[in-house]
């Protein structure tokens, strides 16, 4: 199954990003395809490469980058939400790109399921 994911909460503050990541990983392991993860609202902060959690904690940002690299997943950060929160190209971790809201609508059209993670 072709799956699109939407992440609507920032890292660490909220479990949505963790749940989305674990879901994506489990779906990939089952042979499904994740074609895109769209980050919206405070979810855009998942792309911040300056993120530096304590060493004994999971690195949510790098985890997304690694997953994208390994499985060719398109990590899209909403431009309007990102600009509002000071997230710009120079702040993006590897694998993330900034684009418009149309990307999540397109993901809904093209995928068999769009799964939304938020509050």
């Amino acid at each position, binding site marked *: 199954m072709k799956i699109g994911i939407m992440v609507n909460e920032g890292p660490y503050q909220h479990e949505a990003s963790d749940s989305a990541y674990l879901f994506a990983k489990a779906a990939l392991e089952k042979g499904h395809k994740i074609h895109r993860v769209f980050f919206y609202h405070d979810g855009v902060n998942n792309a911040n490469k300056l993120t530096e959690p304590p060493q004994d904690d999971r690195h949510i940002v790098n985890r997304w980058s690694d997953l994208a690299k390994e499985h060719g997943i398109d990590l899209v950060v909403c431009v309007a939400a990102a600009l509002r929160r000071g997230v710009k190209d120079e702040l993006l971790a590897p694998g993330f790109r900034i684009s418009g*809201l149309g990307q*999540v609508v397109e993901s*809904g059209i093209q995928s068999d399921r769009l799964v939304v993670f938020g509050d």
Partner: protein
Amino acid sequence: MTEATGGVERDQEYGSGTIKKFMYVNRKAPYGTIYALESLEVVLIAAAFDQDVSLAFIDDGVFQLAKGQHTKAIDVKNFSPTYRALEDYDIEKLYVDKESLEARGLTEDDLLVPVQVVSAEELADLMEQQDVVLSF
């Protein structure tokens, strides 16, 4: 990148003419958090994709449609007039949960735009019919 379609080139294949049923579920009060405003931004972009769009308002989300919003004192933009512009985008299916409305002492007359007031059961049926449900 095109502004109106939010970064998607309309010339490229984005769904081969597929029309899906999209429902945007609004659950939060209009101010206090940014969910309502940013949900509306998705809806306006989505309108450019010629999909079958509907909006549902439940829980505190019903306050998004309340008449007489005054936000000057909290220095936040009153975006409620935008709901009145939705029909210009051919978005006319607005469902409001009856219980949520009643629990907050509101009636249909208190709302900015024409809506269909539906029971939780009817709303569940509507959700069941959707291809994509985005919840804010």
